[in-house]
Every structure is written in structure tokens, then in C-alpha cells.
């Protein structure tokens, strides 16, 4: 099989670029960071060469890689911030500082409610372990069913459900202790609104 050339990369860009870009933007909350991450996701695809092209579903592969790459970047951002602040954070998972919801980026990100919803979920991701983060991203950002998530991350459906319960539990406790509960409540309302998916 020939190596990736300009033509094949162009084809990948057209077939998968928008989906990868949207996912990176949803997870990272910033368009420029998403552009950078999108390119790196495709670099990974090129480096995997035949392995990538042999995938039954390249889209599924790109979802998995873009999720991992973006969650790593969010974690690295927190790590760098902790170092800059001279904080020696826990190193075994958990205990991470929550990131304040930040409404960054602009065009093409959907309705205000969708942006708020993603910002809320993004901020809560800092409260949980890596695997729960993945599950939460697939559930809240991609709208996957438990079964789809189980296939995506290699867990059983009951474990996926437990991870989501864990995520919600941490969210409840975090928001319940928030000094300004009304903000949390307002953001949570977005969960019931179909516009969380960017539709109006």
C-alpha cells in the first residue's frame, strides 16, 4: 500500500476533517487549539499508515485518537498551570483542580446553551479519572449510547454506566458545594435542552 501522499491526505481532510475538528473544538473549547489538535490527529493517522487504512471504521479510529489527544492536552494544561502555581498535585489520578467554565472560541460552536453545556462538562472533566473522562466525552459531546461507548472504550455496558454515575456524582457534589449554586443550576438546565446539541 503506498504511503500517504497529498491526494490521500486531501481525501481524508474532506471525509473526516470536519468531524475531527468539531470534536477537538468541543473538547478543548478553543478553535485555534482545535485546529492544531486536528492536524496532529491526522499526523497520527499517517504514522499509523496501513494500520489506520486497515480499520473497518476510520471514523471510529479518529474519534478515539482525537478524544485521547484532546484529553491529554486538557490534562497537560492543568499540569502546566499547577507547576506554574508551584502546586505539587496528586500524581495518581483524581484530586485535580476543577477548571472554571470558560466560554472560549466563537464562530461555529453552536448556540449559547450548547456552548455553556460543553463548558460545564469540560470543567467537570477535571474532577474524574482518564477513563471516566473518555466516557463522559462520548456521552455528553457525541451523544453515544452506553453500548456505543462500551464498544469504543473496551468496557462492559455496566462499567460504562458506573463511570457515568461516578461522573454525575462528582458533578453533583462539586456543584452542590459551589458558592454560586445558581450558576451551576442554570448551566445544568442545558442538559434538558435539545439545543445542547447545537440545534435551535
Amino acid at each position: 500500500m503506498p504511503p500517504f501522499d497529498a491526494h490521500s491526505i486531501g481525501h481524508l481532510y474532506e471525509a473526516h476533517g470536519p468531524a475531527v475538528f468539531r470534536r477537538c473544538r468541543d473538547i478543548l473549547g478553543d478553535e485555534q487549539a482545535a485546529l492544531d489538535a486536528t492536524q496532529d490527529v491526522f499526523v497520527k493517522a499517517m504514522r499509523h499508515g496501513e494500520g489506520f487504512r486497515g480499520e473497518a471504521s476510520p471514523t471510529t479510529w479518529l474519534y478515539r485518537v482525537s478524544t485521547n489527544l484532546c484529553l491529554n492536552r486538557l490534562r497537560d494544561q492543568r499540569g502546566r498551570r499547577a507547576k506554574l502555581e508551584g502546586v505539587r498535585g496528586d500524581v495518581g489520578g483524581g484530586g485535580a483542580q476543577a477548571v472554571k467554565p470558560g466560554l472560549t472560541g466563537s464562530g461555529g460552536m453552536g448556540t449559547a446553551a450548547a456552548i455553556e453545556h460543553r463548558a460545564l462538562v469540560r470543567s467537570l472533566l477535571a474532577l474524574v479519572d482518564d477513563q471516566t473522562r473518555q466516557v463522559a466525552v462520548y456521552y455528553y459531546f457525541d451523544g453515544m449510547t452506553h453500548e456505543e461507548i462500551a464498544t469504543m472504550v473496551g468496557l462492559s455496558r455496566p462499567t460504562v454506566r458506573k463511570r457515568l454515575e461516578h461522573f454525575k456524582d462528582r458533578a453533583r457534589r462539586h456543584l452542590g458545594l459551589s458558592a454560586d449554586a445558581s450558576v451551576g443550576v442554570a448551566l445544568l438546565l442545558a442538559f434538558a435542552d435539545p439545543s445542547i446539541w447545537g440545534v435551535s
Partner: protein
Amino acid sequence: MNHPADALDLLTRPAHPDGLPSRLQIDRLEAGELSPAEARSLRAAIDATPHGHTHLAQRRDDAARLAALLPKEAFINAVMARATEAPEAKAPAYGLLTRLMEALRRFVSTVGGPQLAALGAMAALLLIALPRIIEPGRGLTPKGAHSHAAPTMEILRLQGAEVKAMSSGTIAHRGDQLQVLIRPGGRAFVMVVNLDDRGVFTPYYATDDGQSLPIGDGPQALLPWAIDLDAFTGRERIIALLSDEALIEEDVEAAAQEWVADHHGADPLPMETLDLIPYLDPDGDIDGLTQLTFDVVKEARP
């Protein structure tokens, strides 16, 4: 929705409204990955939901936005340029002693006076205890070593003014401070990571840009800064990956996740079988790649 508890209950509602197919399915449809029957079924599902076509329109908006920010030609050039970049293998910037002094300075400036007993322990480690407790032949057997001297890894626990070498499988607790000592056996780089029996991956020692640490050419290196164990209880495996070229942290994490995926539903995971090398380097392309492992059993403090 007058009470916060009512609003919090919204978290338990499905995130997936109106039976709308997931974005993954829609993206697979648009990418032409579905069979004709699957595609027909999915299109019918999209038509049957109020927001299905809006979803497709949103995808077209995303495509337009991406094209406006990064046109196809620019994207192709950027991706090809990045793909041909070799990961930078950094030369050691400074020696072990300098790194240790820097770690001590950071420790003092970070934790301040109340932790001076622990600082004393680190000083004892450097000046007195270390030469006595590190003896040739201790440490764990490496996997994958071929042309280099056998490397070893020691895990040292700082307890008050004491420094003790731990044995693999030892029970540890939240707040324990560990230090890693590596004898690289001639390898230039090391990355130390942790995977616990839930499948949570944590990098311990890597550069800020996510690559292996250059380890210098000395016979041994005490890695900078101590590891503070968190509240997790269960089994964890600390893994040191030594190599002649810098590894990429994302690749190591992907290898760990592949291993986790190969153990569908195992909870807890069989940590004693964890070996990253077949996942990280299935073709044996990475020179000098060697894995050292150390198991820790985390228990709640009595």
C-alpha cells in the same frame, strides 16, 4: 425546577434527545462507511427525528468553518510537514547533582517550613542513606533488554527522616512519598508512568512537551521530585520505559489503553500481566527499549 436538587437530577436524564443517532453514526454515514442497508436505516432515523437534518446541516457548517480557517491545501502542507518532523531528542541540559539541587529548591519553596522533616529525609537520602541502600544487583529484571547492560529501577519511600527501598508488591498509602532511582544500563532516555487496576494512566516522569526524560550517561539517576501517592486504593504498576530515543507520552498512553481494551470488562485489571512493549513497539523498531515494572498495592490508611 425551583430546587437545586431538581436541577441536579437533570444529570440523570439521557444526553441523547429524541432518539437521534449519535454523531459517530452520522459521521460514519457521511464518510461512506456504512453498508447500503445501514445507511438507509440511519437516514430513516434521521428523517424521523426533529433535529436530524439540522444535525447534518451543522456538520456542513463545521466543514465550511474548517475550510475558512485552514483550507485544504494549507492543511495538507501542515500535516505533511508535521509528519516528517522527528521527535526532538534533547541532550541532557544539566547533571544529576544540579537536577537534585533544583528538586530540593523547588520542594522547599513549594511546601515551606512544616515539611522540613521530609526535607531532612531527602537530604539524608542524598548524603547518607543512598550510598548504603543502593547495592549492585538489586532491582527488578528487565524485559526486552538485548545489547545493553541490564537496567534496574529502585523505588524509595521517604518516611519522616527515614528512606527505605521498597519491594515490589509492597503496601502503600495515600500521602506516601516515593522517589525513583534508575540505573539505565547505557540507555539515554527514561519515561516513568503508572497504570492502576481501573485502567487509569498517569505519567510520572516526562518532559513538559510529553517526551522521555534524557537521563544522562551516569551509572544511576535519582529522578527529580518525589511522587505523592493519592487516595486511590487497589493495585498499581509503575513502569519505567528506557530507550535510546525519546518516546512520546501519547504513544505510551495509547499502548496502555490498548492493553486495557484487550481486557474487556476486567475490573480490576490483571496488573501482573501488564507488559507495554508488545503494544508500544510490536515490530521491535525502538532501539534499546526496555521495560521495568514495580507493583504497588494501595490501601486506605488504618
